[in-house]
Protein backbone atom coordinates (compact mmCIF):
# COMPACT_ATOMS: atom_id res chain seq x y z
CA UNK A 1 0.00 0.00 0.00
CA UNK A 2 2.77 2.43 0.98
CA UNK A 3 4.52 1.81 -2.33
CA UNK A 4 1.27 2.22 -4.22
CA UNK A 5 0.75 5.61 -2.58
CA UNK A 6 3.85 6.79 -4.43
CA UNK A 7 1.90 6.54 -7.68
CA UNK A 8 -0.14 9.57 -6.55
CA UNK A 9 1.43 12.82 -7.81
CA UNK A 10 0.16 14.70 -4.73
CA UNK A 11 1.94 12.30 -2.40
CA UNK A 12 5.20 12.86 -4.28
CA UNK A 13 5.01 16.58 -3.57
CA UNK A 14 3.98 16.12 0.06
CA UNK A 15 6.76 13.58 0.50
CA UNK A 16 9.05 16.20 -1.02
CA UNK A 17 8.00 18.62 1.70
CA UNK A 18 9.25 16.11 4.28
CA UNK A 19 12.42 15.18 2.38
CA UNK A 20 13.58 18.79 1.84
CA UNK A 21 14.62 19.36 5.49
CA UNK A 22 16.84 16.28 5.31
CA UNK A 23 18.80 17.61 2.33
CA UNK A 24 21.77 19.98 2.52
CA UNK A 25 20.78 23.60 1.96
CA UNK A 26 22.66 24.10 -1.31
CA UNK A 27 20.71 21.40 -3.19
CA UNK A 28 17.29 22.15 -1.71
CA UNK A 29 16.21 24.56 -4.44
CA UNK A 30 17.11 22.03 -7.13
CA UNK A 31 15.30 19.30 -5.23
CA UNK A 32 12.28 21.59 -4.91
CA UNK A 33 11.95 21.68 -8.70
CA UNK A 34 12.61 17.95 -9.09
CA UNK A 35 9.48 16.90 -7.20
CA UNK A 36 6.94 18.81 -9.35
CA UNK A 37 8.87 17.72 -12.47
CA UNK A 38 8.35 14.13 -11.37
CA UNK A 39 4.70 14.86 -10.62
CA UNK A 40 4.27 16.47 -14.06
CA UNK A 41 5.74 13.38 -15.73
CA UNK A 42 3.36 11.16 -13.76
CA UNK A 43 0.32 13.31 -14.55
CA UNK A 44 1.26 13.29 -18.21
CA UNK A 45 1.66 9.52 -18.46
CA UNK A 46 -1.10 8.20 -16.16
CA UNK A 47 -3.85 6.27 -17.96
CA UNK A 48 -7.45 7.35 -17.43
CA UNK A 49 -9.68 5.71 -14.85
CA UNK A 50 -9.84 5.10 -11.11
CA UNK A 51 -6.32 3.89 -10.53
CA UNK A 52 -6.02 3.44 -6.76
CA UNK A 53 -8.51 2.47 -4.09
CA UNK A 54 -8.19 1.98 -0.38
CA UNK A 55 -10.83 0.85 2.11
CA UNK A 56 -11.72 3.35 4.83
CA UNK A 57 -14.34 2.43 7.43
CA UNK A 58 -17.19 1.08 5.33
CA UNK A 59 -16.24 3.18 2.32
CA UNK A 60 -13.84 2.72 -0.52
CA UNK A 61 -11.73 5.80 -1.16
CA UNK A 62 -10.67 6.69 -4.70
CA UNK A 63 -7.25 8.23 -4.30
CA UNK A 64 -6.39 8.64 -7.96
CA UNK A 65 -9.22 9.35 -10.40
CA UNK A 66 -7.85 10.48 -13.76
CA UNK A 67 -9.81 11.88 -16.68
CA UNK A 68 -9.36 14.68 -19.20
CA UNK A 69 -10.48 17.39 -16.78
CA UNK A 70 -8.31 16.33 -13.85
CA UNK A 71 -5.32 15.77 -16.12
CA UNK A 72 -5.25 19.29 -17.56
CA UNK A 73 -5.58 20.81 -14.08
CA UNK A 74 -2.88 18.41 -12.84
CA UNK A 75 -0.59 19.52 -15.67
CA UNK A 76 -0.98 23.22 -14.96
CA UNK A 77 -0.62 22.82 -11.18
CA UNK A 78 2.61 20.85 -11.62
CA UNK A 79 3.88 23.26 -14.26
CA UNK A 80 3.26 26.33 -12.12
CA UNK A 81 4.96 24.68 -9.15
CA UNK A 82 8.04 24.19 -11.34
CA UNK A 83 7.94 27.81 -12.52
CA UNK A 84 7.35 29.01 -8.94
CA UNK A 85 10.27 26.85 -7.83
CA UNK A 86 12.55 28.54 -10.37
CA UNK A 87 11.28 31.96 -9.27
CA UNK A 88 12.05 31.05 -5.64
CA UNK A 89 15.37 29.39 -6.46
CA UNK A 90 17.38 31.95 -4.50
CA UNK A 91 15.25 31.58 -1.36
CA UNK A 92 16.95 29.83 1.53
CA UNK A 93 13.91 29.56 3.75
CA UNK A 94 13.19 25.90 4.40
CA UNK A 95 9.78 26.59 5.92
CA UNK A 96 8.59 28.38 2.80
CA UNK A 97 9.97 25.72 0.48
CA UNK A 98 8.43 22.82 2.36
CA UNK A 99 5.07 24.47 2.81
CA UNK A 100 4.94 25.51 -0.86
CA UNK A 101 5.52 21.88 -1.89
CA UNK A 102 2.91 20.57 0.52
CA UNK A 103 0.52 23.27 -0.70
CA UNK A 104 0.99 22.26 -4.34
CA UNK A 105 0.60 18.64 -3.21
CA UNK A 106 -2.74 19.56 -1.67
CA UNK A 107 -3.89 21.15 -4.93
CA UNK A 108 -2.86 18.09 -6.95
CA UNK A 109 -4.54 15.84 -4.40
CA UNK A 110 -7.80 17.74 -4.74
CA UNK A 111 -7.51 17.45 -8.52
CA UNK A 112 -7.17 13.67 -8.55
CA UNK A 113 -9.47 12.90 -5.63
CA UNK A 114 -12.27 10.57 -6.68
CA UNK A 115 -14.26 10.82 -3.45
CA UNK A 116 -15.25 13.52 -1.00
CA UNK A 117 -13.11 12.37 1.94
CA UNK A 118 -9.91 12.36 -0.05
CA UNK A 119 -10.86 15.73 -1.51
CA UNK A 120 -11.51 17.19 1.92
CA UNK A 121 -8.22 16.00 3.40
CA UNK A 122 -6.18 17.55 0.58
CA UNK A 123 -8.40 20.65 0.73
CA UNK A 124 -7.37 21.19 4.36
CA UNK A 125 -3.71 20.46 3.65
CA UNK A 126 -3.82 23.29 1.12
CA UNK A 127 -5.30 25.70 3.66
CA UNK A 128 -2.81 24.84 6.39
CA UNK A 129 0.30 24.81 4.17
CA UNK A 130 -0.55 28.03 2.38
CA UNK A 131 -1.04 29.94 5.65
CA UNK A 132 2.65 29.61 6.33
CA UNK A 133 3.46 31.41 3.06
CA UNK A 134 1.81 34.48 4.57
CA UNK A 135 3.40 34.16 7.99
CA UNK A 136 6.83 33.71 6.44
CA UNK A 137 6.82 37.41 5.54
CA UNK A 138 7.32 37.95 9.27
CA UNK A 139 5.71 41.34 9.63
CA UNK A 140 3.09 42.24 12.19
CA UNK A 141 0.57 42.70 9.41
CA UNK A 142 1.27 39.33 7.81
CA UNK A 143 1.05 37.59 11.19
CA UNK A 144 -2.47 38.86 11.65
CA UNK A 145 -3.48 38.39 8.02
CA UNK A 146 -2.20 34.81 8.07
CA UNK A 147 -4.29 34.02 11.12
CA UNK A 148 -7.38 35.55 9.50
CA UNK A 149 -6.67 33.58 6.32
CA UNK A 150 -6.37 30.33 8.25
CA UNK A 151 -9.51 30.95 10.29
CA UNK A 152 -11.57 31.82 7.23
CA UNK A 153 -10.36 28.70 5.45
CA UNK A 154 -11.10 26.51 8.46
CA UNK A 155 -14.59 28.00 8.38
CA UNK A 156 -14.83 27.24 4.63
CA UNK A 157 -13.57 23.70 5.19
CA UNK A 158 -16.24 23.33 7.87
CA UNK A 159 -18.93 24.43 5.43
CA UNK A 160 -17.72 21.95 2.84
CA UNK A 161 -17.46 19.11 5.36
CA UNK A 162 -20.93 19.85 6.74
CA UNK A 163 -22.23 19.66 3.18
CA UNK A 164 -20.42 16.39 2.54
CA UNK A 165 -21.78 14.79 5.73
CA UNK A 166 -25.32 15.96 4.97
CA UNK A 167 -24.91 14.69 1.41
CA UNK A 168 -23.85 11.25 2.70
CA UNK A 169 -26.55 10.98 5.34
CA UNK A 170 -29.24 11.86 2.81
CA UNK A 171 -28.17 8.90 0.71
CA UNK A 172 -25.71 10.68 -1.57
CA UNK A 173 -22.68 8.92 -3.00
CA UNK A 174 -19.18 9.41 -1.63
CA UNK A 175 -17.93 9.61 -5.20
CA UNK A 176 -17.36 13.02 -6.71
CA UNK A 177 -19.84 13.53 -9.51
CA UNK A 178 -21.88 16.43 -10.81
CA UNK A 179 -24.77 17.43 -8.56
CA UNK A 180 -28.23 18.18 -9.95
CA UNK A 181 -29.24 21.83 -9.38
CA UNK A 182 -31.38 21.45 -6.26
CA UNK A 183 -31.12 23.72 -3.27
CA UNK A 184 -31.01 21.15 -0.48
CA UNK A 185 -29.10 21.91 2.71
CA UNK A 186 -26.32 19.51 1.70
CA UNK A 187 -25.85 21.13 -1.70
CA UNK A 188 -25.97 24.65 -0.32
CA UNK A 189 -23.30 23.92 2.29
CA UNK A 190 -21.05 22.28 -0.29
CA UNK A 191 -21.58 25.13 -2.73
CA UNK A 192 -20.74 27.69 -0.02
CA UNK A 193 -17.63 25.77 1.01
CA UNK A 194 -16.39 25.64 -2.57
CA UNK A 195 -17.48 29.24 -3.23
CA UNK A 196 -15.37 30.45 -0.32
CA UNK A 197 -12.23 29.03 -1.92
CA UNK A 198 -13.36 30.29 -5.32
CA UNK A 199 -13.50 33.76 -3.70
CA UNK A 200 -17.14 34.45 -4.50
CA UNK A 201 -18.27 37.70 -2.85
CA UNK A 202 -19.11 38.10 0.01
CA UNK A 203 -16.87 35.15 0.93
CA UNK A 204 -13.89 36.51 -0.98
CA UNK A 205 -12.26 39.00 1.37
CA UNK A 206 -9.59 36.57 2.57
CA UNK A 207 -7.97 36.69 -0.87
CA UNK A 208 -7.43 40.41 -1.19
CA UNK A 209 -6.53 40.56 2.49
CA UNK A 210 -3.88 37.84 2.49
CA UNK A 211 -2.24 37.75 -0.96
CA UNK A 212 -0.74 41.25 -0.81
CA UNK A 213 0.75 40.40 2.58
CA UNK A 214 2.26 37.03 1.64
CA UNK A 215 5.94 36.59 0.83
CA UNK A 216 7.11 37.58 -2.66
CA UNK A 217 7.45 33.98 -3.78
CA UNK A 218 4.57 32.64 -1.69
CA UNK A 219 2.06 34.89 -3.42
CA UNK A 220 3.00 33.34 -6.77
CA UNK A 221 1.96 29.89 -5.58
CA UNK A 222 -1.11 31.24 -3.86
CA UNK A 223 -2.31 33.14 -6.93
CA UNK A 224 -2.19 29.88 -8.88
CA UNK A 225 -3.43 27.14 -6.59
CA UNK A 226 -6.23 27.81 -4.09
CA UNK A 227 -8.83 29.50 -6.25
CA UNK A 228 -8.17 27.41 -9.34
CA UNK A 229 -8.39 24.11 -7.49
CA UNK A 230 -11.75 25.37 -6.20
CA UNK A 231 -12.76 26.24 -9.77
CA UNK A 232 -11.87 22.67 -10.70
CA UNK A 233 -14.09 21.30 -7.92
CA UNK A 234 -16.87 23.65 -9.03
CA UNK A 235 -16.61 22.34 -12.60
CA UNK A 236 -16.87 18.81 -11.19
CA UNK A 237 -19.76 19.36 -8.81
CA UNK A 238 -21.86 22.26 -10.02
CA UNK A 239 -21.85 22.45 -13.84
CA UNK A 240 -25.01 24.02 -15.19
CA UNK A 241 -26.15 25.62 -11.92
CA UNK A 242 -27.73 28.69 -13.47
CA UNK A 243 -27.27 30.88 -10.41
CA UNK A 244 -23.53 30.71 -11.10
CA UNK A 245 -23.93 32.64 -14.36
CA UNK A 246 -24.91 35.78 -12.48
CA UNK A 247 -22.67 35.05 -9.52
CA UNK A 248 -19.78 35.03 -11.97
CA UNK A 249 -20.84 38.29 -13.61
CA UNK A 250 -21.08 39.99 -10.21
CA UNK A 251 -17.63 38.65 -9.31
CA UNK A 252 -16.14 39.96 -12.54
CA UNK A 253 -17.48 43.48 -11.99
CA UNK A 254 -16.89 43.51 -8.23
CA UNK A 255 -13.25 42.50 -8.57
CA UNK A 256 -12.74 45.11 -11.28
CA UNK A 257 -14.11 47.99 -9.23
CA UNK A 258 -11.95 47.11 -6.24
CA UNK A 259 -8.89 46.55 -8.38
CA UNK A 260 -9.35 50.00 -9.91
CA UNK A 261 -9.33 51.50 -6.41
CA UNK A 262 -6.46 49.54 -4.86
CA UNK A 263 -3.15 51.21 -4.11
CA UNK A 264 -1.05 48.12 -3.40
CA UNK A 265 0.12 46.50 -6.65
CA UNK A 266 -0.47 42.97 -5.41
CA UNK A 267 -3.89 43.99 -4.13
CA UNK A 268 -4.77 45.11 -7.67
CA UNK A 269 -3.69 41.71 -8.93
CA UNK A 270 -5.54 39.93 -6.11
CA UNK A 271 -8.82 41.67 -6.92
CA UNK A 272 -8.20 40.98 -10.55
CA UNK A 273 -8.09 37.25 -9.68
CA UNK A 274 -11.63 37.55 -8.32
CA UNK A 275 -12.67 39.30 -11.52
CA UNK A 276 -11.12 36.61 -13.72
CA UNK A 277 -12.58 33.76 -11.67
CA UNK A 278 -15.92 35.43 -12.39
CA UNK A 279 -15.53 34.48 -16.08
CA UNK A 280 -14.91 30.86 -15.11
CA UNK A 281 -17.82 30.75 -12.67
CA UNK A 282 -20.14 32.20 -15.33
CA UNK A 283 -18.99 29.54 -17.77
CA UNK A 284 -19.57 26.80 -15.18
CA UNK A 285 -23.07 28.18 -14.70
CA UNK A 286 -23.82 27.72 -18.40
CA UNK A 287 -22.65 24.13 -18.18
CA UNK A 288 -22.45 23.34 -21.91
CA UNK A 289 -19.42 21.43 -23.21
CA UNK A 290 -18.03 24.57 -24.86
CA UNK A 291 -18.56 26.53 -21.63
CA UNK A 292 -16.84 23.96 -19.43
CA UNK A 293 -14.00 23.78 -21.94
CA UNK A 294 -13.85 27.57 -21.75
CA UNK A 295 -13.77 27.57 -17.95
CA UNK A 296 -11.00 24.98 -17.97
CA UNK A 297 -8.97 26.76 -20.63
CA UNK A 298 -9.40 30.08 -18.87
CA UNK A 299 -8.30 28.61 -15.54
CA UNK A 300 -5.25 27.15 -17.31
CA UNK A 301 -4.33 30.42 -19.00
CA UNK A 302 -5.16 32.46 -15.95
CA UNK A 303 -2.70 30.49 -13.84
CA UNK A 304 0.06 31.25 -16.33
CA UNK A 305 -0.50 34.97 -16.81
CA UNK A 306 -1.54 35.72 -13.26
CA UNK A 307 1.51 34.04 -11.78
CA UNK A 308 3.61 35.98 -14.31
CA UNK A 309 2.00 39.21 -13.10
CA UNK A 310 2.56 38.28 -9.45
CA UNK A 311 6.17 37.44 -10.27
CA UNK A 312 6.68 40.86 -11.86
CA UNK A 313 5.01 42.59 -8.92
CA UNK A 314 7.26 40.54 -6.65
CA UNK A 315 10.26 41.74 -8.65
CA UNK A 316 9.19 45.35 -8.04
CA UNK A 317 8.89 44.70 -4.31
CA UNK A 318 12.21 42.87 -4.30
CA UNK A 319 13.92 45.75 -6.06
CA UNK A 320 12.32 48.71 -4.30
CA UNK A 321 10.98 47.35 -1.02
CA UNK A 322 7.57 48.87 -1.53
CA UNK A 323 4.38 47.73 -3.20
CA UNK A 324 2.39 50.95 -3.01
CA UNK A 325 1.56 52.98 -6.09
CA UNK A 326 1.59 56.05 -3.85
CA UNK A 327 5.36 55.56 -3.42
CA UNK A 328 6.41 54.02 -6.75
CA UNK A 329 7.01 55.62 -10.12
CA UNK A 330 9.76 56.99 -12.28
CA UNK A 331 12.09 54.03 -12.69
CA UNK A 332 10.93 52.45 -15.94
CA UNK A 333 14.43 52.75 -17.41
CA UNK A 334 15.88 50.64 -14.60
CA UNK A 335 13.92 47.46 -15.27
CA UNK A 336 12.93 47.28 -18.96
CA UNK A 337 12.98 43.48 -19.07
CA UNK A 338 10.60 43.14 -16.13
CA UNK A 339 8.24 45.70 -17.69
CA UNK A 340 8.28 43.81 -20.99
CA UNK A 341 7.51 40.51 -19.31
CA UNK A 342 4.84 42.11 -17.13
CA UNK A 343 3.18 43.62 -20.19
CA UNK A 344 2.98 40.20 -21.85
CA UNK A 345 0.98 38.99 -18.85
CA UNK A 346 -1.04 42.20 -18.62
CA UNK A 347 -2.03 42.14 -22.29
CA UNK A 348 -2.83 38.43 -22.01
CA UNK A 349 -5.23 39.02 -19.14
CA UNK A 350 -6.76 41.94 -21.08
CA UNK A 351 -7.65 39.62 -23.95
CA UNK A 352 -5.24 40.94 -26.56
CA UNK A 353 -5.32 38.74 -29.69
CA UNK A 354 -2.39 36.31 -30.11
CA UNK A 355 -1.89 36.04 -26.36
CA UNK A 356 -3.35 33.26 -24.28
CA UNK A 357 -6.14 35.16 -22.46
CA UNK A 358 -7.80 35.83 -25.81
CA UNK A 359 -8.11 32.17 -26.76
CA UNK A 360 -10.04 31.25 -23.61
CA UNK A 361 -12.06 34.45 -23.12
CA UNK A 362 -13.47 34.18 -26.64
CA UNK A 363 -14.40 30.58 -25.85
CA UNK A 364 -16.44 31.69 -22.84
CA UNK A 365 -18.17 34.48 -24.75
CA UNK A 366 -18.80 31.98 -27.55
CA UNK A 367 -20.53 29.70 -25.04
CA UNK A 368 -22.53 32.65 -23.70
CA UNK A 369 -23.52 33.55 -27.25
CA UNK A 370 -24.66 29.97 -27.93
CA UNK A 371 -26.80 30.13 -24.80
CA UNK A 372 -28.21 33.54 -25.88
CA UNK A 373 -27.06 35.21 -22.68
CA UNK A 374 -26.44 38.66 -24.09
CA UNK A 375 -26.29 40.77 -20.94
CA UNK A 376 -23.66 38.59 -19.31
CA UNK A 377 -21.57 38.98 -22.48
CA UNK A 378 -21.77 42.76 -22.29
CA UNK A 379 -21.08 42.87 -18.56
CA UNK A 380 -18.08 40.57 -18.93
CA UNK A 381 -16.82 42.86 -21.68
CA UNK A 382 -17.07 45.76 -19.24
CA UNK A 383 -15.02 43.67 -16.80
CA UNK A 384 -12.50 43.09 -19.60
CA UNK A 385 -12.22 46.83 -20.12
CA UNK A 386 -11.70 47.21 -16.38
CA UNK A 387 -9.06 44.50 -16.38
CA UNK A 388 -7.17 46.29 -19.13
CA UNK A 389 -7.53 49.52 -17.15
CA UNK A 390 -6.17 48.29 -13.82
CA UNK A 391 -3.76 45.51 -14.73
CA UNK A 392 -2.81 46.62 -18.22
CA UNK A 393 -2.59 50.38 -17.68
CA UNK A 394 -2.98 51.69 -14.12
CA UNK A 395 -0.53 49.32 -12.48
CA UNK A 396 2.35 49.60 -14.98
CA UNK A 397 1.84 53.33 -15.58
CA UNK A 398 1.90 54.36 -11.93
CA UNK A 399 4.50 51.76 -10.95
CA UNK A 400 7.11 52.56 -13.56
CA UNK A 401 6.26 55.43 -15.86
CA UNK A 402 4.48 58.10 -13.85
CA UNK A 403 6.53 60.77 -12.15
CA UNK A 404 8.63 59.83 -9.18
CA UNK A 405 6.85 60.19 -5.83
CA UNK A 406 9.63 59.18 -3.47
CA UNK A 407 13.34 58.40 -3.64
CA UNK A 408 13.67 54.70 -4.42
CA UNK A 409 16.74 52.50 -4.29
CA UNK A 410 16.29 50.03 -7.13
CA UNK A 411 18.34 46.93 -6.42
CA UNK A 412 19.04 44.20 -8.96
CA UNK A 413 16.81 41.17 -9.42
CA UNK A 414 18.13 37.59 -9.27
CA UNK A 415 18.47 35.91 -12.67
CA UNK A 416 16.31 32.96 -11.63
CA UNK A 417 13.36 35.31 -11.09
CA UNK A 418 13.77 36.66 -14.60
CA UNK A 419 14.06 33.15 -16.04
CA UNK A 420 10.83 32.05 -14.34
CA UNK A 421 9.03 35.10 -15.69
CA UNK A 422 10.46 34.41 -19.12
CA UNK A 423 9.02 30.90 -19.03
CA UNK A 424 5.62 32.29 -17.99
CA UNK A 425 5.68 34.84 -20.81
CA UNK A 426 6.75 32.13 -23.26
CA UNK A 427 3.67 30.06 -22.42
CA UNK A 428 1.42 33.14 -22.68
CA UNK A 429 2.64 33.68 -26.23
CA UNK A 430 2.80 29.97 -27.12
CA UNK A 431 -0.83 29.24 -26.26
CA UNK A 432 -1.88 32.56 -27.75
CA UNK A 433 -0.34 31.71 -31.11
CA UNK A 434 -1.08 27.97 -31.08
CA UNK A 435 -4.33 27.53 -29.14
CA UNK A 436 -4.73 24.01 -30.54
CA UNK A 437 -1.98 22.88 -28.14
CA UNK A 438 -4.30 23.81 -25.31
CA UNK A 439 -7.61 22.91 -26.93
CA UNK A 440 -6.46 19.35 -27.61
CA UNK A 441 -6.02 18.81 -23.86
CA UNK A 442 -9.46 20.09 -22.87
CA UNK A 443 -11.98 17.67 -21.31
CA UNK A 444 -14.36 17.77 -24.29
CA UNK A 445 -13.32 17.60 -27.95
CA UNK A 446 -13.71 20.99 -29.61
CA UNK A 447 -13.21 22.62 -32.99
CA UNK A 448 -13.53 26.14 -31.61
CA UNK A 449 -11.74 28.79 -33.67
CA UNK A 450 -10.79 31.89 -31.71
CA UNK A 451 -9.20 33.83 -34.56
CA UNK A 452 -12.13 35.38 -36.39
CA UNK A 453 -12.35 38.85 -37.88
CA UNK A 454 -15.25 39.55 -35.55
CA UNK A 455 -13.14 38.85 -32.46
CA UNK A 456 -10.24 40.95 -33.77
CA UNK A 457 -12.50 43.89 -34.50
CA UNK A 458 -14.14 43.56 -31.11
CA UNK A 459 -10.96 43.45 -29.06
CA UNK A 460 -9.10 46.06 -31.10
CA UNK A 461 -11.87 48.63 -30.79
CA UNK A 462 -12.35 47.97 -27.09
CA UNK A 463 -8.68 48.09 -26.19
CA UNK A 464 -7.80 51.15 -28.29
CA UNK A 465 -10.68 53.22 -26.95
CA UNK A 466 -10.14 52.01 -23.39
CA UNK A 467 -6.53 53.11 -23.69
CA UNK A 468 -7.59 56.54 -24.89
CA UNK A 469 -10.08 56.76 -22.05
CA UNK A 470 -7.39 55.87 -19.54
CA UNK A 471 -4.98 58.40 -20.92
CA UNK A 472 -7.37 61.30 -20.55
CA UNK A 473 -9.00 60.22 -17.29
CA UNK A 474 -6.03 58.72 -15.45
CA UNK A 475 -5.86 61.51 -12.92
CA UNK A 476 -9.19 60.27 -11.57
CA UNK A 477 -7.72 56.91 -10.57
CA UNK A 478 -6.89 56.44 -6.93
CA UNK A 479 -3.19 56.17 -6.08
CA UNK A 480 -3.34 57.74 -2.64
CA UNK A 481 -2.20 55.82 0.41
CA UNK A 482 -5.53 54.30 1.31
CA UNK A 483 -6.97 50.87 1.91
CA UNK A 484 -10.25 49.50 0.63
CA UNK A 485 -12.92 48.36 3.04
CA UNK A 486 -14.37 45.06 1.98
CA UNK A 487 -16.47 42.34 3.55
CA UNK A 488 -13.57 41.48 5.85
CA UNK A 489 -14.76 44.60 7.69
CA UNK A 490 -17.41 42.40 9.27
CA UNK A 491 -14.84 40.27 11.04
CA UNK A 492 -11.98 42.74 11.36
CA UNK A 493 -13.75 45.78 12.69
CA UNK A 494 -15.65 44.03 15.50
CA UNK A 495 -12.55 41.96 16.33
CA UNK A 496 -11.66 44.29 19.21
CA UNK A 497 -15.19 44.19 20.50
CA UNK A 498 -15.37 40.41 20.17
CA UNK A 499 -12.05 40.11 21.95
CA UNK A 500 -13.31 42.36 24.72
CA UNK A 501 -16.60 40.48 25.05
CA UNK A 502 -15.36 36.92 24.75
CA UNK A 503 -11.75 37.03 25.90
CA UNK A 504 -11.14 40.02 28.13
CA UNK A 505 -14.52 40.07 29.90
CA UNK A 506 -14.46 36.39 30.98
CA UNK A 507 -10.80 36.82 31.83
CA UNK A 508 -11.55 39.80 34.05
CA UNK A 509 -14.48 37.99 35.63
CA UNK A 510 -12.28 35.01 36.46
CA UNK A 511 -9.62 37.32 37.82
CA UNK A 512 -12.16 39.13 39.99
CA UNK A 513 -13.67 35.95 41.45
CA UNK A 514 -10.20 34.53 42.03
CA UNK A 515 -9.34 37.66 43.95
CA UNK A 516 -12.47 37.42 46.08
CA UNK A 517 -11.94 33.72 46.79
CA UNK A 518 -8.35 34.28 47.84
CA UNK A 519 -9.26 37.17 50.09
CA UNK A 520 -12.03 35.11 51.66
CA UNK A 521 -9.67 32.20 52.19
CA UNK A 522 -7.17 34.56 53.76
CA UNK A 523 -9.79 35.89 56.14
CA UNK A 524 -10.94 32.39 57.07
CA UNK A 525 -7.45 31.18 57.74
CA UNK A 526 -6.77 34.25 59.86
CA UNK A 527 -9.94 33.49 61.77
CA UNK A 528 -8.90 29.94 62.53
CA UNK A 529 -5.40 30.89 63.54
CA UNK A 530 -6.25 31.53 67.21
CA UNK A 531 -9.98 31.01 67.75
CA UNK A 532 -9.77 31.29 71.53
CA UNK A 533 -9.25 35.01 71.05
CA UNK A 534 -12.87 35.29 69.95
CA UNK A 535 -14.26 33.22 72.82
CA UNK A 536 -12.18 34.94 75.45
CA UNK A 537 -11.79 38.49 74.26
CA UNK A 538 -9.23 40.70 75.93
CA UNK A 539 -10.57 42.70 78.88
CA UNK A 540 -9.31 45.25 81.37
CA UNK A 541 -9.27 44.35 84.99
CA UNK A 542 -8.12 46.60 87.76
CA UNK A 543 -6.49 48.98 85.42
CA UNK A 544 -4.45 46.46 83.48
CA UNK A 545 -5.24 44.70 80.30
CA UNK A 546 -5.78 40.98 80.41
CA UNK A 547 -5.25 39.34 77.04
CA UNK A 548 -7.11 36.13 76.43
CA UNK A 549 -4.18 34.70 74.51
CA UNK A 550 -1.62 36.45 76.63
CA UNK A 551 -1.23 34.03 79.56
CA UNK A 552 2.07 33.27 81.16
CA UNK A 553 3.65 29.92 80.38
CA UNK A 554 2.66 28.35 83.71
CA UNK A 555 -0.94 29.54 83.33
CA UNK A 556 -1.05 28.10 79.80
CA UNK A 557 0.23 24.79 81.07
CA UNK A 558 -2.45 24.77 83.81
CA UNK A 559 -5.18 25.60 81.31
CA UNK A 560 -3.91 22.94 78.90
CA UNK A 561 -3.94 20.43 81.78
CA UNK A 562 -7.57 21.28 82.63
CA UNK A 563 -8.52 20.98 78.94
CA UNK A 564 -6.76 17.62 78.77
CA UNK A 565 -8.68 16.52 81.89
CA UNK A 566 -11.95 17.39 80.22
CA UNK A 567 -11.02 15.42 77.11
CA UNK A 568 -10.18 12.34 79.20
CA UNK A 569 -13.46 12.69 81.11
CA UNK A 570 -15.42 12.87 77.85
CA UNK A 571 -13.63 9.81 76.50
CA UNK A 572 -14.37 7.85 79.68
CA UNK A 573 -18.05 8.86 79.65
CA UNK A 574 -18.66 8.06 76.01
CA UNK A 575 -16.62 4.91 75.54
Amino acid at each position, binding site marked *: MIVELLSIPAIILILGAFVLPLLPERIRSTAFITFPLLALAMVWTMPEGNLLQTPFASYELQLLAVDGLSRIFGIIFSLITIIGGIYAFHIKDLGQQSSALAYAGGALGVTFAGDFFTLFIFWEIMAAASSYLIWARETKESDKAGMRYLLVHIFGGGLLFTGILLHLTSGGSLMIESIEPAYTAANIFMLLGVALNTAVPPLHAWLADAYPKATITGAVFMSALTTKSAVYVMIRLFPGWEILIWVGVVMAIYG*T*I*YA*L*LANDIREILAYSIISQIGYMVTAIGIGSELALNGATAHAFNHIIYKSLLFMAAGAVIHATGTSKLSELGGFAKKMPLIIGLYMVGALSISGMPFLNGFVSKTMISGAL*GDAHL*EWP*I*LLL*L*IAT*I*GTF*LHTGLKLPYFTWFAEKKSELEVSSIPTNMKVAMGIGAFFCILFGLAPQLLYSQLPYPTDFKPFS*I*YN*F*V*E*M*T*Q*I*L*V*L*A*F*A*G*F*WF*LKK*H*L*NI*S*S*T*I*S*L*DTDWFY*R*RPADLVQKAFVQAPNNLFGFTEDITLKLANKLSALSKNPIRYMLPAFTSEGREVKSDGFTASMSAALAFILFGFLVAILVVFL
Partner: protein
Amino acid sequence: MKTWHWIALGTLLIVSLILEFTYLADYASHWWNHVPAFYALLGGLGCAVLIFVSKGLGKIFILSDEDYYDR
Protein backbone atom coordinates in the same frame (compact mmCIF):
# COMPACT_ATOMS: atom_id res chain seq x y z
CA MET B 1 2.90 59.28 -25.37
CA LYS B 2 4.53 60.39 -28.56
CA THR B 3 2.59 61.43 -31.65
CA TRP B 4 3.44 58.24 -33.53
CA HIS B 5 1.93 56.17 -30.72
CA TRP B 6 -1.38 57.91 -31.27
CA ILE B 7 -1.05 57.50 -35.03
CA ALA B 8 -0.45 53.76 -34.59
CA LEU B 9 -3.47 53.39 -32.34
CA GLY B 10 -5.61 55.49 -34.70
CA THR B 11 -4.55 53.33 -37.64
CA LEU B 12 -5.48 50.18 -35.73
CA LEU B 13 -8.87 51.65 -34.95
CA ILE B 14 -9.47 52.68 -38.54
CA VAL B 15 -8.47 49.22 -39.80
CA SER B 16 -10.88 47.62 -37.35
CA LEU B 17 -13.66 49.99 -38.45
CA ILE B 18 -13.02 49.24 -42.12
CA LEU B 19 -13.13 45.52 -41.37
CA GLU B 20 -16.36 46.01 -39.44
CA PHE B 21 -18.10 47.83 -42.27
CA THR B 22 -16.88 45.50 -45.01
CA TYR B 23 -16.49 41.94 -43.73
CA LEU B 24 -18.97 42.17 -40.89
CA ALA B 25 -21.54 44.46 -42.56
CA ASP B 26 -24.42 41.98 -42.43
CA TYR B 27 -23.17 40.07 -39.41
CA ALA B 28 -25.69 39.97 -36.60
CA SER B 29 -25.35 37.43 -33.84
CA HIS B 30 -26.19 39.94 -31.12
CA TRP B 31 -28.62 42.84 -31.06
CA TRP B 32 -25.82 45.35 -30.67
CA ASN B 33 -24.23 44.35 -33.98
CA HIS B 34 -26.59 46.81 -35.64
CA VAL B 35 -24.95 49.71 -33.81
CA PRO B 36 -22.00 50.95 -35.88
CA ALA B 37 -18.65 50.92 -34.07
CA PHE B 38 -20.40 49.50 -31.02
CA TYR B 39 -17.28 48.00 -29.47
CA ALA B 40 -15.37 51.26 -29.81
CA LEU B 41 -18.22 53.05 -28.04
CA LEU B 42 -18.33 50.34 -25.40
CA GLY B 43 -14.56 50.60 -24.87
CA GLY B 44 -14.56 54.36 -24.46
CA LEU B 45 -17.78 54.73 -22.48
CA GLY B 46 -17.15 51.61 -20.39
CA CYS B 47 -13.76 52.96 -19.46
CA ALA B 48 -15.18 56.30 -18.34
CA VAL B 49 -18.08 54.70 -16.49
CA LEU B 50 -15.77 52.32 -14.63
CA ILE B 51 -13.35 55.05 -13.63
CA PHE B 52 -16.07 57.37 -12.32
CA VAL B 53 -18.23 54.68 -10.71
CA SER B 54 -15.24 53.25 -8.85
CA LYS B 55 -14.16 56.74 -7.89
CA GLY B 56 -17.62 57.50 -6.54
CA LEU B 57 -17.90 54.24 -4.62
CA GLY B 58 -14.42 54.79 -3.26
CA LYS B 59 -15.44 58.18 -1.96
CA ILE B 60 -18.72 57.01 -0.47
CA PHE B 61 -17.51 54.08 1.57
CA ILE B 62 -14.75 51.90 0.16
CA LEU B 63 -11.58 53.94 0.59
CA SER B 64 -10.30 54.52 4.07
CA ASP B 65 -7.09 55.49 5.86
CA GLU B 66 -4.34 52.90 6.03
CA ASP B 67 -4.52 52.71 9.83
CA TYR B 68 -8.28 52.15 9.78
CA TYR B 69 -8.11 48.71 11.39
CA ASP B 70 -5.45 49.72 13.90
CA ARG B 71 -7.42 52.52 15.43
